[in-house]
């Protein structure tokens, strides 16, 4: 009477261990950027071919701006001059402003170094640098899904703001003047040593066209 029970138990254990191997969860790659924590480090080439690392700017406030030259939401901020004036104002105050393009080659929003230089000239934009991220590594790291996606990192390397540029999700140029600009507010708070009032919002805009997989 004992042996059948023993065999049964062993057979059951074997089946259970086989079944326990499943449960793959279908979830996109997890972003590691979390507001309030250390900003994840990255390195990416810029439009002159130099490799830029986040660590190069240790001790400075850094702004990351995800852009897409064909997107009407990005266009709203550049055509109105809003983005350029933010860039000028804050880079003059010592803030490092990095514009990033994360679209994959062949997809909408992808730019070669030449295209990027042309865009900067056309916009009369003044970022500290323009980084190219066609593999989407930096984009996924900061969970950039819609452009313009804005990130503010303080002098201590902590992520203090991530999300939309302002509170009016639209393509109307006139909305820029009446909107509350979250990035300006965050940068002003950091400069004054105050905590950022609104630290996280949902970015609005056109989707970032990442590469497959």
């Amino acid at each position: 009477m004992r042996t059948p029970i023993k065999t049964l138990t062993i057979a059951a254990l074997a089946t259970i261990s086989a079944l326990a191997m499943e449960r793959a969860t279908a979830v996109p790659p997890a972003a590691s950027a979390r507001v309030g924590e250390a900003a994840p480090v990255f390195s990416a080439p810029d439009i002159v071919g130099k490799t830029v690392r986040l660590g190069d700017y240790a001790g400075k406030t850094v702004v990351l701006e995800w852009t897409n030259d064909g997107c009407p939401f990005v266009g709203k901020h550049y055509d109105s001059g809003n983005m350029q004036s933010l860039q000028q104002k804050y880079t003059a105050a010592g803030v490092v402003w990095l514009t990033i393009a994360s679209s994959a080659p062949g997809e909408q929003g992808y730019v070669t170094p030449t295209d990027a230089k042309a865009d900067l000239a056309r916009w009369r934009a003044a970022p500290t640098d323009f980084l190219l991220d066609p593999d989407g590594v930096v984009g996924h790291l900061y969970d950039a899904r819609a452009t313009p996606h804005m990130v503010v990192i303080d002098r201590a390397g902590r992520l203090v703001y991530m999300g939309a540029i302002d509170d009016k999700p639209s393509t109307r140029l006139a909305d820029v003047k009446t909107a509350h600009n979250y990035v300006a507010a965050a940068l002003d708070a950091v400069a004054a040593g105050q905590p950022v009032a609104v630290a996280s919002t949902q970015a609005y805009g056109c989707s970032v066209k990442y590469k497959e997989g």
Partner: protein
Amino acid sequence: MRIVSILRGILSLALVAAAPLLASTARADGPPAPKDLVKADLVAETTSIAAGATLWVDVHLEVKPGWHIYWRNPGDSGLPTTIDWRLPSGFSAGNIFWPAPEHFVQNGVGNYGYAGSADLLVPITAPKELAAGQTAVLKAEAAWLVCAEICIPGGAKLSLSLPIATQPPAPDPAVAALFDAARRQLPVPAPFETRFVAAAQDYRLLVPAAAVAGQRHPAGMFFPIDGSLIDAAAEPIIERRTDGLEIVLRKVPGHTGAPATLDGVLSLRDENSAARAFNVSANPAPALLPAETGIFWWQALLLAFLGGIVLNAMPCVFPILSLKLLSLAGQAHSHRSEQIYHGVAYTAGVLASFAAVGGALLALRTGGQAVGWGFQLQSPIFVAVLAYLLFAMGLSLSGIVDLGASFAGTGGRLAGRSGLAGAFFTGALATVVATPCTAPFMGAALGYALIAPAAVAIGVFLALGLGLAMPYLVATFSPGWQRVLPRPGAWMDFIKQLLAFPLYATVAWLLWVLIQEIGPGEAFGALFGLVLVAFAVWIYGRTRLATPFGRSLGTGLAAAGSAVAIFLAASLTATGGGAVPANAATQGGLRYEPFSPQRLSVLEAEGKPVFVNLTASWCVTCLINERLALDSEAVREAFAARGVVPLKGDWTSQNPEIAEFLQQFGRSGVPLYLLYTGKGEPVMLPQILTAASVLDALGKS
């Protein structure tokens, strides 16, 4: 001169002719014009409008293939489609009734919207005072973002003129088909209730079984109205449970806090049928212990088996087992193989009864009844009949009547069919009597059984039965212990009469349960029934040695008495008014509040520590735990010091709310003890409590 003017004319003509060509080539290089991408129309359901009437209009949008527009919550990117109304004074437009959207995900970015076409229905209400004979002009400005690879904002100015009539307007047959199709795309209010649980990384939407009844491979999608909660790029994970469907929705990374309700559109579809969309507003369910800590099926079988063995020591089963063992000792010198047959017959009786009880439980559950382990005792009729049976057995043991082998198997011959049938019946009786006692480990095993497939569930019940029958079965196989006992003699009669008393004690307890269930007034019927049973047993016993006529008379009177007793039992109904509530404060015990899931949610939201005690009058383990552990001074003081609010749920009679709550914790019977510490998930205490273990759990929190 004329030639020049002719030439000039030709040139201008040529230019005019060429212009579109030039323009179109220029356009071919640039982005497509918005009006090519989305065509918008404003259609009214009726041909006129009357004062005070509500008119439905359809903003019909046709989207170019390959492009899409967005729902009210566009997802990770995009913009919702908007309609801005310009109506004559007194008219008002309601909110947009959105058709069920689709889910688009591309490489880590998710959106909710429409490809192909979308009909946005809006109700327009006319003012009460309206001059007939005039025309009302309804104007709307629709704005959208249409995207494929690139995004292009677009819009259209729409207008509709309707004559104002005095009669109620008739529907326009030309557009009836359009409106019919549009309405079929709208989500309907859900005819079922959904709940949600906020876990660390995701929200779990719980859809009840009724919503997916009969579907073999249900799948679903949830579209939240609030875009800040759920990650639009993650596909939901669907988990099938017996109590329904669990849809796991990944939270937006970095999202903190939980909403009061989870609102949105739930789209359910089966493999072969079209999707159905429902508007849901899910309330939070109390924190669930993760389903993954459930036990494996082989663990459930093992626990059930062990539980069955331990059940033999419980006051319900102990008398029966003792009598069986005694009867075995009485036949120590009869043929061993006969004993083994008896052991097997008893086991068969136990197994058959457990299979029947288990089958009945599963059948009731599939039928939608909220029943759990011990459900038999929620019926006062069953309790009364069980009391009669045990009383009759006790009387038999006391010597009022010698019912011989067919009852307790004491005395008489074991040989032959009657002996085996008697053993089978005793096995069945043991099962019936064992049900109110929940042994340790049985709670988890049985809870698992009721949410597992039917075959596994029956297996668990059979394992329990096997455990219950095991001591006796083993005893019949190894007769060695019988030699230790003295030879059968008068002492056996003494033991037999002594064992009547645990049976009488069980009867007294069942009567107490009955009074809890139906109140003292109603219970009198059952009490009188007992008197009749006593009479029936006595008259039957008295007439066994009489003349044939006497015997028949005795049997007849006994039958009549029993019939009346059973009739009295059958007329018992569980009334709410007469019953004594189990949460009436016992002398010197914990002061409980009545349990309800709503009260628990409120206390949880307030962050107060709560102790939930789910019990029933017929649950012996529950009563022992209360007497020894929960009502002890140490525990009472500790609860008072920590401000723990004790909630008591009484499952003595049927209560679907408690049954559902039990099932959320993987249990199908009482007792269930939960300690909510005010933060995090609740701690489940073991089924056998001691004051020390309760204080320990409290201390750890």
